[in-house]
């Protein structure tokens, strides 16, 4: 089952490159800690998922690169080609000359519609190349103009045209202390739109990844390259083939088989007063957790800790909310590795902060003229605020 990746904007393209590189490097590594046959099955599965074959045998990433100015795409294409191990399709990119100027409105209302046909055509071509297509992986940042604005637009289009396929968006949450001054506006507009059309939003915060580089990896002078490589490592360990729970001898065919469609019970949420008093206030309450274990001794690993009811909201049984996938084949030469994908309250604080800052700025009407210039009016902002306040409230109520 194949995934088509759409990389948008500078951030999306820079990360996309690292992800494909990490995936291929891992799959081609011989340190799998498993038998040769298994390694080969792993490799084949990874390849089919993310790459297509070309005549001369060099894997071609199943990706569409989109950016509104050429520098980053050119760099990305050449870096891939330089590696010699894989490359991007020659005609898989869409590029314009002038960027989106950090303006969500420009990305969404001007660039999006203008280039809709070309971009969707490129995506369709990639989808047609897949023998069995499973879904989209869209990599974008929220702070800028292209990734955020065009990302929202494209995701909407994918929802219309491929409503049965999974759309997972990889969102890069910007640093709290600005990279872009209007990042909060761009973020709330992006999130509120994606909420309507995306199936899953996988979030990575720049601040968090930065801390990983600084504290855990002790990198002195952290560059975006370092940050992106950490991100790629995390994503790779989620997306590389895993065994399905049912049959331990075949790799799971559907890479994005996480059931994100969790809904609160139709009988309604329990009233707030009934919160469990023994709940440790440090726990983020979760709706769903997925643990993926790779490497040595996976079968004997103890994951009971993840089934503690205290971790989950009162209207969910841990057995429904928790999944574990185990694969013997090691990832990226690590003897043992584990990754946790969680749908929980961890994002409430950052989201609340962004909404708060955007709201303060909106109250003073600062920068609004830059958005109304391209058709995003104050009502659109208010709609976004409303939907995000609802998201925050929903998560807080868990």
């Amino acid at each position: 089952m194949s995934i088509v990746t759409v990389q948008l904007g500078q951030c999306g393209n820079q990360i996309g490159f690292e992800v494909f590189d990490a995936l291929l490097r891992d799959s081609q590594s011989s340190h799998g800690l498993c038998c040769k046959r298994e390694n080969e099955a792993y490799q084949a599965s990874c390849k089919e998922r993310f790459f297509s074959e070309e005549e001369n045998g060099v894997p071609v990433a199943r990706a569409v690169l989109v950016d509104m100015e050429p520098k980053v795409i050119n760099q990305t294409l050449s870096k891939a080609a330089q590696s010699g191990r894989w490359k991007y399709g020659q005609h898989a990119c869409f590029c314009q000359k002038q960027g989106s100027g950090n303006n969500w409105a420009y990305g969404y209302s001007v660039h999006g519609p203008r280039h809709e046909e070309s971009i969707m055509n490129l995506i369709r071509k990639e989808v047609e190349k897949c023998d069995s297509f499973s879904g989209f992986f869209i990599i974008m940042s929220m702070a800028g103009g292209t990734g955020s604005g065009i990302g929202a637009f494209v995701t909407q289009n994918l929802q219309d045209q491929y409503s049965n396929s999974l759309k997972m968006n990889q969102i890069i949450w910007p640093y709290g202390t600005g990279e872009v001054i209007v990042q909060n506006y761009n973020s709330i507009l992006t999130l509120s739109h994606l909420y309507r059309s995306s199936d899953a939003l996988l979030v990575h915060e720049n601040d968090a990844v930065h801390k990983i580089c600084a504290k855990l990896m002790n990198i002195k002078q952290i560059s975006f390259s370092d940050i992106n490589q950490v991100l790629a490592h995390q994503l790779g360990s989620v997306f590389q083939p895993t065994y399905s729970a049912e049959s331990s001898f075949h790799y799971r065919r559907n890479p994005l088989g996480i059931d994100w469609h969790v809904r609160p019970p139709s009988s309604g949420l329990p009233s707030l007063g009934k919160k469990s008093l023994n709940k440790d206030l440090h726990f983020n309450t979760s709706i769903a957790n997925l643990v993926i274990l790779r490497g040595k001794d996976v079968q004997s690993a103890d994951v009971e800790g993840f089934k503690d009811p205290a971790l989950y909201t009162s209207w969910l049984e841990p057995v429904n909310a928790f999944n574990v996938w185990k694969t013997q084949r090691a990832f990226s030469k690590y003897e043992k590795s584990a990754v946790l994908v969680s749908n929980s309250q961890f994002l409430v604080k950052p989201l609340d902060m962004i909404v708060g800052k955007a709201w303060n700025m909106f109250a003073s009407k600062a920068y609004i003229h830059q958005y109304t210039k391209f058709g995003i009016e104050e009502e659109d902002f208010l709609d976004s605020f409303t939907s995000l306040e609802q998201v925050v409230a929903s998560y807080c109520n868990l």
Partner: protein
Amino acid sequence: MTQSVVVQVGQCGNQIGCCFWDLALREHAAVNQVPARSHEPPRLSARVVGDGGSISKGKICSLKARAVLIDMEEGVVNEILQGPLRDVFDTKQLITDISGSGNNWAVGHRVFGSLYQDQVLEKLRKSAEHCDCLQCFFIIHSMGGGTGSGLGTFLLKMLEDEFPEVYRFVTSIYPSGEDDVITSPYNSILAMKELNEHADCVLPIDNQSLFDIISKIDLMVNSGKLGTTVKPKSLVTSSSGALKTRHQKPFDAMNNIVANLLLNLTSSARFEGSLNMDLNEISMNLVPFPQLHYLVSSLTPLYTLTDVNIPPRRLDQMFSDAFSKDHQLLRADPKHSLYLACALMVRGNVQISDLRRNIERLKPSLQFVSWNQEGWKTSLCSIPPVGHSHSLLALANNTCVKPTFMELKERFMRLYKKKAHLHHYLQVEGMEESCFTEAVSSLSALIQEYNQLDATKNMPVQDLPRLSIAM
């Protein structure tokens, strides 16, 4: 890739422009000397500001500047055409006259404006046609004279009408108090009204600041305090190593500073980096309200010492310097005023962690407006300027420009109250006293906006009540 066209108007504008092209060529020659690695496309960064060039044996040949040169006197432009840069300019892109504007805004704006309107439009259209994606017009002029000030601002309205989607960035040299042109306050205020209404972004610069920077450099270089010598090419004021050697003229040092400002401003659009910043992002991030588009710039470093390995402490010094008054191109005190927004454009081997560390370090000493507490826009460009391993350009939208404008207004009122020299202006057709009063009100309104923002300065930051949602 987008292109920009430089429009240099008047004596000051053309002299600065000349230095700019010289340095731009120097930068491109230096950058292209390193042969592109085989997988990289040849660096076409020159195409952003130049046209039709080819690169042979590391030298840039037959590159034509995307520029329009306008002056109502022939002296300066002729000198350029006879000098070593003559090949760089397309002779069809010039407009000159002989009589000059007599330091009279009205002559520049109304007389020459109407006289040369069609010609100017034609040249501008021509240069736009040579661009396959024109993004920005850079206008360079002075405020105190007649041509740069009058005709230069006349162009703004024309550009806005003719090319509404192209940004207009204006680099304006404001007259200092001791300016020898008596009518400079009149010219400046009349020009300010145009800048208020038709420019997207203005970078005000005053001669006094440039002069102070030069004095500081001279002091450092000559004092012998520095144990090692200063790299000559690295002086922000120097033309050495420039592609074409020119006879160093008195204002060259100052003009080179401004030229470096423009180079650094466009660097992220021309070269690669891990966090690019295009010119349209400058306006998007730094202009919260349409009228408040005046940006104070500061440039570091001003020179490099010959010791090559610069430890991070020196790097941090660069950031501190950018916020010191010594490096600003306008006499102002941003630290004691209110920041509306700030952009840091870094070039060279600087990574995101260095940037973040310094922002954290400097933030406490700076006051940002309540609705933009994290009002930082950053960019990282991999290619440093010639002679440096890294550099920083800081652009601040700060209420500290207010005193400059207020002073200008005062000087204006002193003259206007006595009606001194007014007749020179009023005798130009179409000029009436109302032009003056309108210009002053426009400036007063602007000052008032800054006042209102300043009033919020020391108030505690309050979070406004949020939307409440029924669940």
